[in-house]
């Protein structure tokens, strides 16, 4: 394996952060969905404290990136749109947490 070149940013985990997940509202959504199997729009709204429009817009971005799967289900006779992370989304979130851990683990002592 070749050594990262100085000044290229290759050895810097900060450059490896997934900015799509890094945004606080989307990080909150991803964290919620990572620990759950699936949830509907209302549940996510309640748990994240985001407004209807805000949540809708962030979910759209996550869905476009392939991190989120939207599935129509029926609970009794009522239709429910359930949201869950795709495998790609789970992997991306896991990778994000590892990167962040690495960033803070490597903090020098003050």
């Amino acid at each position: 394996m070749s050594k990262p070149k100085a000044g290229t940013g290759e050895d810097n985990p900060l450059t490896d952060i997934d900015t799509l997940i890094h945004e606080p509202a989307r990080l909150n959504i991803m964290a919620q969905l990572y620990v759950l199997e699936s949830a509907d729009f209302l549940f996510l709204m309640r748990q994240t404290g985001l407004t209807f429009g805000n949540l809708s817009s962030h979910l759209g971005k996550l869905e476009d990136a392939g991190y989120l799967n939207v599935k129509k289900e029926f609970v009794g006779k009522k239709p429910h749109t359930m949201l869950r992370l795709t495998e790609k989304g789970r992997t991306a979130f896991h990778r994000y947490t590892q990167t962040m851990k690495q960033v803070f683990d490597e903090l020098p002592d003050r």
Partner: protein
Amino acid sequence: MPGTVSLKEIERKAWTSYFEDGLWDVFLGAMLLIGGIRSLTDNVWYTLLVLSLVPVVPLGKKLITIPRLGYVKFGPGRKLKLGKAKAALVISVLAVFALFLLPVLFTHSGLPLPGIPVSPIMAAWIAVFFGVLAYYLDFKRLYAYGLLYGMSEVIWGQFGKPVGSVAQTIMGIAILVIGLVVFVRFLQRFPLPPKGVSDVKA
């Protein structure tokens, strides 16, 4: 500085939010209260009233909690814990059944009935059972309710009627009031959303 955030804590918060509707508290309080009144008045109609409370929690969850809080499916870890809580429920029902069946069996077989201290055993069982449920369901108030239910059983065993009935009624009222306060807070915190929000597509 806000408290520490961990994925475990996020999952626990999502899970416990379903217990912040106060329905279980109202149900358990009403059961104890009506049980106390029934034994005070010797009116069998109260037994029917107790039975009529059984659908309160599932119906309340369906008609009040889910429309306000949303619908969620939890991960395998939580499902396993729920399975353990259900197993504890089945085992405890069988244990109580055995405790009450034992004297009948002894009477039918003609053997002398051993002096089983039913009341302390029941009280200990109730406290342990509520404790196990509280642990697996992450529902902390159940620890306190287990103690109150157990205490009412001890008082009943020690003093009989009417002291036991009054104690049961008072403890029932205490749990019911807690439940109603939690319920009202839940309704204020989570008003009904506009129609169709659960059906929104991203």
